[in-house]
Every structure is written in structure tokens, then in C-alpha cells.
């Protein structure tokens, strides 16, 4: 019964108790006042005694009075257990008031064949075991049961016949590479399907990246791309496209089977994404949340906000657009017009980084589309080699298709956003300890080329402020408490002793 009902129950029952009911025949009215007076006095006396003693003794009295002539010992439900009473912690023997039911039992003694209820009406003890706390072995057993149930649920309602995934990630060594790749790596490690991770690294393969990939335990193909990553976003996007095509060529050569997904290292993926892409047949499109992030905290954002109030801020989503019957009718791209003037050109600009019209990350392909010769290859896909040879501006996988209407919209026709696009980078020339391990700290660091600070270091107070507004810079501190600054145009030997004093970590206000 619901709580309200119970509460109402009690008012109802109280009502019934108060009104003796029209059904009951009343006692002789003559004796009523005397009897009631007597009961009031007795009741008051009992209350006083209970106050003195500290517990309700009425039950005890009843038990002692009536236990001698009760015949219902067979049906008693007494439990001398610890009992919760309204008074505090007094140990009261809770006993059963002589139950109303037992009118039948004396007669039933002779013929046990006639049944009386095993269940007795009346007050029962509240059974509490001596150690009412969870048993760790049982908790483990329960977790195993839950796990088995969830596995069965996945088998029944989840993806049947899951296909292996091929993840294509272009990357290059930079300050934020570890941050981004670690996040992506952890997401991929959680994916419950077979996976091959193709990492294309600009500037050739490096030991640091390889060490990072090794920690994942996934099957990785690490490819070097023999060009360095340029410093403008435009050029970077183009190069990333070329790197992805290089990865697709590997898929083609090795005839890797599965679903190709483009996971850029700056993006964030949800776990449902990997379940959703299992349903793609040839080529699918997803909605990507665009987090056009502005590095500059103060000025431009307030300007932006004023603009936001004036015009409706565009939905930061890129993806397929469907009509009411769930068919693909077009594409929704991120409206970058409000940001165009303030957009970043160089990778380390403190301005908003804009995405392309349609990011590669929002598409998934069946790997068979890039294979060379298969029987049932659809006609609407162009051959990969021809594309690369033409050197077109391949902005998105749509260029692989002759006919873009065959794209399958995924994620409830683009309504569910399962991944987010974000680009956050440090300054292009920023230095960071390779592998994020501090060797003996450098005495002198090379001054940054585009530093606004003078080369000659002036005297500085011990509590130093280092610019870090735009970039979230990690300050790795070694065990001795020394801090080696990533970009710092001045350092002296005597700094080290001071450094021991000042534990500088985290983000600091911008210094100008």
C-alpha cells in the first residue's frame, strides 16, 4: 500500500476506533460514567508508573496474567530477540497478546486433521540477526549474478553478430598529444568489440607515441607519415585528410574487415556510439556535437554572449538531417558565420577553432568499400586509388561516393549526439618533457620564438605567475618538489632553491 494510503488508513482506522460503530451494541448507560472514571484513573496511574519505570509494562502484565491459562502455546510466536521500541534501548521482552484466533485450537487438539491457520494474527517479534551487515562473500556473489544478468541482457537485446572495428586516428607529437590520446585510448579500451587501431603519425613514428600506444593493450597499427604537421588549421585539416586516406590504403592492402570509424584524438566518444555504429551497412553518418571553444576567457566571450542574446545561437551540431519519415534529406552543418572573424588561423591562436563543414569523425564506413576487388561492391562508391591520385579536396568521406543519398543516418536519425568534436592545442613551439618524464631539469630553456617577453630575465618574486590562460598546462612536479616550467624564458641556478619553496602548480593568471 502506498504511503498516503497508509496514512489515510490510519485516519480511517482511528475514525473507526473512535466511533464504536453503529453495529456494536452498547453497554448499559447507567454504569458508563462510573466505569469510564475508573478507567481514566487506572490509565493515569499506569502512565505514571510507566514514566517511572521507563517502559510500557502493560504487555508484561498481560503476559503474566494470562500466560497460565492460555492453551495456545503451540501457536505462540514469541521471539526473545532485540526489539525496536519507541522508548530508547530498553530491552523489553516482546510477547504476544493472546491472539483472538485461538478459539478453534482447543477443539482441534483431538483431530489434527482439521486445519487451522499456521499464520497467527497478533503481535509478532521483529526478527533481527545479531550482525545485520552485509557479508562480503555474498556481496561478491550478488555482483556475479548481476554481471551474468547484464551479459544475458546484452546478448538478448544488444548487438547481434558484432563486427570488428577499425579506428583511424591521425596524430602528431605535441604538448597535448598525451592528453588527447590517453582519453581516446581509454575510450577504446572500454569498447566490448574487437578493434584495430590505426594511428597515423605526422613526422614519422616516434618512440613516445609508440610507448603510449603500447599501454593500451589494443591491436594497433602505427604508421608514419613523412611530413610534419603544419601550423595553420587549414593546412592541418588538409593534412589530416591525407593521413586518413593513408590509413584507408592500409585497410585496403591488408584487407581488414570491419567498420571504419574516424576517431580524431581531440574528440570525445560515448560508449553508445560503438554500439550504434554496429548497425551500419555501407556508409553511415552521425551527429557530432561541435564544441567551438574559445581560448580567450574575458573579452571575446562577453562579446559573444551579447551576440548570443541578440540572435539565436546556432545548434552546435553537425550531422544528417532527416525528414519526418526518417530518410536522409540533407546535412546540418555548424553555422560558423558568427565566429568567422574571430576564428583561429594558427594552431595556438587564442581564438575559436572552427570545424570543417562536415567532419570526418561523423562518418563510418564498411571497410569493404575501400577494398580493391570484391564481388558485391556497390556502384556508387569511387575507387580509393583514383581519389588519391586526383588530389581533390576531399573534405569528407562524401567525396568517396558518387551518390550521397545512400548514406544511412545513425543515432535515431541524427537525433542522438554520440560524440563531440573539440580542438584544444598548446602553442606550437611549446616544449614539454618528452614522455612526460623529468630528467635532470634543464638549467636553461630555449626562449620561445614568438614570446612577447624580453630575452633577458628580470628578477622575479618567488611566487611566480606563468601564463597559462589559454592552455591548460599540466605542471608535472617531480618527487623532489622541483618544478620545471614548460615555457619559461628565464631560469637561473638560484631559481632552483626558490623553486623548492614555491610549489607552483595548476593554472595561474595571465601575466603581461
Amino acid at each position, binding site marked *: 500500500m502506498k504511503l498516503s494510503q497508509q496514512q489515510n488508513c490510519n485516519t480511517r482506522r482511528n475514525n473507526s476506533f473512535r466511533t464504536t460503530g453503529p453495529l456494536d451494541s452498547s453497554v448499559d448507560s447507567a454504569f458508563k460514567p462510573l466505569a469510564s472514571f475508573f478507567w481514566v484513573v487506572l490509565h493515569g496511574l499506569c502512565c505514571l508508573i510507566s514514566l517511572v519505570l521507563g517502559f510500557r509494562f502493560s504487555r508484561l502484565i498481560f503476559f503474566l496474567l494470562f500466560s497460565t491459562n492460555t492453551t495456545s502455546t503451540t501457536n505462540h510466536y514469541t521471539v526473545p530477540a532485540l526489539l525496536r521500541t519507541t522508548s530508547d534501548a530498553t530491552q523489553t521482552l516482546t510477547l504476544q497478546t493472546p491472539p483472538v484466533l485461538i478459539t478453534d485450537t482447543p477443539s482441534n487438539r483431538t483431530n489434527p486433521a482439521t486445519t487451522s491457520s499456521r499464520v497467527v494474527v497478533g503481535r509478532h517479534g521483529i526478527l533481527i540477526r545479531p550482525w545485520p551487515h552485509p557479508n562480503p562473500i555474498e556481496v561478491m556473489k*550478488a555482483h556475479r549474478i548481476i554481471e551474468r544478468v547484464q551479459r544475458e541482457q546484452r546478448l538478448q537485446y544488444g548487438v547481434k553478430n558484432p563486427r570488428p572495428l577499425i579506428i583511424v586516428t591521425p596524430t602528431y607529437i605535441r604538448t597535448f598529444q598525451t592528453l588527447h590520446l590517453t582519453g581516446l585510448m581509454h575510450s577504446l579500451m572500454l569498447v566490448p568489440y574487437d578493434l584495430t587501431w590505426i594511428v597515423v603519425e605526422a613526422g614519422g613514428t616516434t618512440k613516445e607515441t609508440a610507448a603510449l600506444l603500447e599501454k593500451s593493450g589494443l591491436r594497433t597499427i602505427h604508421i608514419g607519415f613523412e611530413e610534419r604537421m603544419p601550423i595553420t588549421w587549414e593546412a592541418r585539416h588538409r593534412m589530416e585528410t591525407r593521413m586518413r586516406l593513408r590509413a584507408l590504403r592500409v585497410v585496403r592492402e591488408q584487407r581488414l574487415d570491419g567498420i571504419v570509424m574516424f576517431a580524431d584524438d581531440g574528440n570525445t566518444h560515448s560508449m553508445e556510439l560503438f554500439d550504434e555504429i554496429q548497425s551500419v551497412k555501407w556508409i553511415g553518418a552521425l551527429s557530432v556535437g561541435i564544441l567551438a571553444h574559445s581560448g580567450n576567457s574575458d573579452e571575446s566571450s562577453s562579446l559573444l554572449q551579447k551576440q548570443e542574446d541578440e540572435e539565436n545561437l546556432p545548434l552546435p551540431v553537425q550531422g544528417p538531417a532527416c525528414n519526418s519519415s526518417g530518410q536522409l534529406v540533407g546535412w546540418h552543418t555548424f553555422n560558423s558565420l558568427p565566429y568567422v572573424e574571430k576564428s583561429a588561423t594558427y594552431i595556438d591562436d587564442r581564438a575559436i577553432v572552427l570545424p570543417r563543414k562536415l567532419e570526418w569523425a561523423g562518418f563510418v564506413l564498411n571497410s569493404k568499400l575501400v577494398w580493391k576487388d570484391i564481388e558485391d561492391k556497390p556502384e556508387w562508391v569511387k575507387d580509393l586509388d583514383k581519389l588519391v591520385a586526383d588530389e581533390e579536396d576531399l573534405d569528407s568521406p562524401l567525396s568517396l561516393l558518387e551518390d550521397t543519398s545512400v548514406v544511412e543516418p545513425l543515432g535515431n536519425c541524427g537525433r542522438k549526439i554520440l560524440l563531440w568534436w573539440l580542438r584544444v592545442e598548446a602553442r606550437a613551439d611549446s616544449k614539454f618533457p618528452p614522455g612526460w618524464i623529468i630528467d635532470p631539469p634543464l638549467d636553461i630553456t630555449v626562449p620561445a620564438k614568438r614570446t612577447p617577453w624580453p630575452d633577458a630575465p628580470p628578477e622575479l618574486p618567488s611566487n611566480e605567475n606563468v601564463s597559462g590562460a589559454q592552455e591548460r598546462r599540466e605542471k608535472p612536479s617531480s618527487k623532489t618538489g622541483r618544478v620545471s616550467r614548460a615555457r619559461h624564458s628565464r631560469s637561473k641556478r638560484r631559481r632552483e632553491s626558490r623553486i623548492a619553496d614555491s610549489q607552483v602548480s595548476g593554472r595561474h593568471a595571465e601575466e603581461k
Partner: protein
Amino acid sequence: MKVPIWVFVVVAVLATAFVLRIGAEELDQSHQTERIADDPVGRLKVFVYELPSKYNKKILQKDPRCLTHMFAAEIFMHWFLLSSPVRTLNPEEADWFYTPVYTTCDLTPNGLPLPFKSPRMMRSAIQLISSNWPFWNRTEGADHFFVVPHDFGACFHYQEEKAIERGILPLLQRATLVQTFGQRNHVCLNEGSITIPPYAPPQKMQAHLIPPDTPRSIFVYFRGLFYDVGNDPEGGYYARGARASVWENFKNNPLFDISTEHPTTYYEDMQRAVFCLCPLGWAPWSPRLVEGVIFGCIPVIIADDIVLPFADAIPWEEIGVFVAEKDVPKLDTILTSIPPEVVLRKQRLLANPSMKQAMLFPQPAQPGDAFHQILNGLARKLPRDKSIHLKPGEKILNWTAGPVGDLKPW
């Protein structure tokens, strides 16, 4: 080796008997589950008495809340029978007679039914049908059925002691009672009564369904009272102390998600739980059983000697877990020691849509739902032997039995 041939014969006979016995058991089990799918249409005929509207329509007009509370089955049964193919307008060919009297519709301002006038209402209805039609007196009600969904059925009281004192209304002793209350060897449960589930609104439950691949992460779930502080502040009376025992033993156990809160996500949470507790309250039955079956949560029934709805058609032993009230302190041991295969099997049985359908009273009626199960139960009692027909002049029922207050006219 000379083995007499009769040895072979005996062995062969024993072997076949053994095989047949196993086969019969299996058949019996499958027979039991097939019973849910029985179609009552064509197997029985029901005649619905036309009572004046003061017994049904006027009462409902006075308080339309009767359509949504958990005793609404009596009203919906009436509506279902009026338009059902089993209804016959010719009482001579009817197997069963139904009297539409809404005894559980006298509600307090808070929505709880008061049973004080119900015996008089029922008695008045029976007097009417016995004087206007000859069918009651023919059998003294043995081929009549009544829907009495109140707490203790036809004992017409919410307090168990008083209900036992009153017993089943003497006039209904020979009739078949369709009630929610069921406890073995109890005064208020007649042999041959049909136990039905309490009414739970089907649309409301359908509206709260979540995708079935949402992983079930709660081990044990319960929402409700443990102590009824208004009526039983010390505990021990309410639920025979079982609910209080659950609270005291498991309030610190992270596997047990139990509390007295009223979350808006109650139905959704049930779908994320593996086990749902269905302990007794003031009466042993509860709508939680229905909710558990609908949402695929294995019901853990803590009520000694309870008789569950449609027990002859639904294999409750295989679907739910039964825990004796004295074993409540060991509830976690009991539940965690159930092998995972058994848990999966129970969930698979619960996922059977016919099971869920049998617990509901949808509007309009659908095949396999609770209305049809009631009719199946009635049909299984046919054919009757002629002994229920009374010889002329014979009287079994005592029309003046019962408390004096019941004899007053309504």
C-alpha cells in the same frame, strides 16, 4: 541363464510406468502454462443480472476514483462482461450468474474504501435477485459468482482480527468468490475461490517502459512502508513484523535499495532491478506483484501461506522466490545463493508476454488478460454435478446469520 519371462514383463511395465510418470509430470507442467492461453469463449455462458443503478452506476457516479484505485477490478469486470461474447441474455442456458454490485466503492476523502456498509449492500442485492429471479433459490447461489476485491475479500473488514471474527458473509457461503485476498487455511478464503491480481493501471505502466537493454544494476528493490506509525507504532503488528525485519536487517546493505520514499521513477527503477520485494502489509496481497511481473523484476514473496493470483494457471514457484517470514534475516543469503542459471530462467519466464498480459485488466479487454483468466477459472469448474441444485423446500443458507448490524436494510 534361465530368467523367467515374467521378470522381463515386470521390468518392462515398470520402465514404461516410470517414463509415463515423467512424461505426465512434464505434461502437467506444460499443461499448467498452456492454461493461460485457454480461450473461455464457447466454454461457458454468463448471465448478468440487471440490478437497479443504485448498486453500481450511481455509486460510481458519486465517486469516480473507484475506477483507478486497486479495487477497480469489480467495475471493470462488470463492463467486460456486458460486452463479452460469453454473455448470454437467456438465463436458462447460463452456466454462471454475475451480480454487479460495487461493494468497494464507498471511499473516504483520502480514497480508502470503507467496508462497513458492504455486507448490507451485498445482502440487499442478494435479496433482490432471489426475489426477482428463481435462479438463486434453485441452487442457493452455488452457480453465482461475485467479485469482492477488498482487503480480506468477503469478510468485509480491513482489520484481520475483525475480518476473521466476521467470517465470510453467510449468504455467500455457496457462491464462488473472485477476490484478491488469498491465504491458505484462512477463514476468508473459501475452497474454490478464484484469486485475482489487484488492479494496476495498464496505460500508466506502459508509459514508463524503458529500453530492455538498459542493464539491470539494482540487486534488490523495494519502496514502501516498513513501520505503519499511525496504526502500529511499535511494530510487530504491521506485516507481522516482516517489513520491519527487512528494514532493520538490510538498511545498511548496499545490495538492497529499500526506502520509504516515493520516487517519480518508481517504475523505471523496477525495470533496473533484478529482485523486487513483495512483502505482506496489513493483507498478504499487494500490487507490487503485478508491477514486478510487468517489469520483469523477479518477485520475492514474503507472506506465509499466501495464495497467489491464478495459481492454477501461472507457475509462481518457477517465476518468483518464496521466503518464509521467519527467514527474513537470512534474505541476503537466500537471494545470493540462487544460481545464476535459475535467475536467468526466471527472467526468461517473466519475459513471456502472456504472463504479463494475464496480470492486467486492459480496456478494452484483450485475449489472455486477467478477465479471460477469471473466465477460464470459472470454466474449469464446469461441468457441475447436479447435487448443487436443491430439492424443493430444502434450505441450506441461514438468512439471519451474522452480526445484527448486517441485517439492517441498505
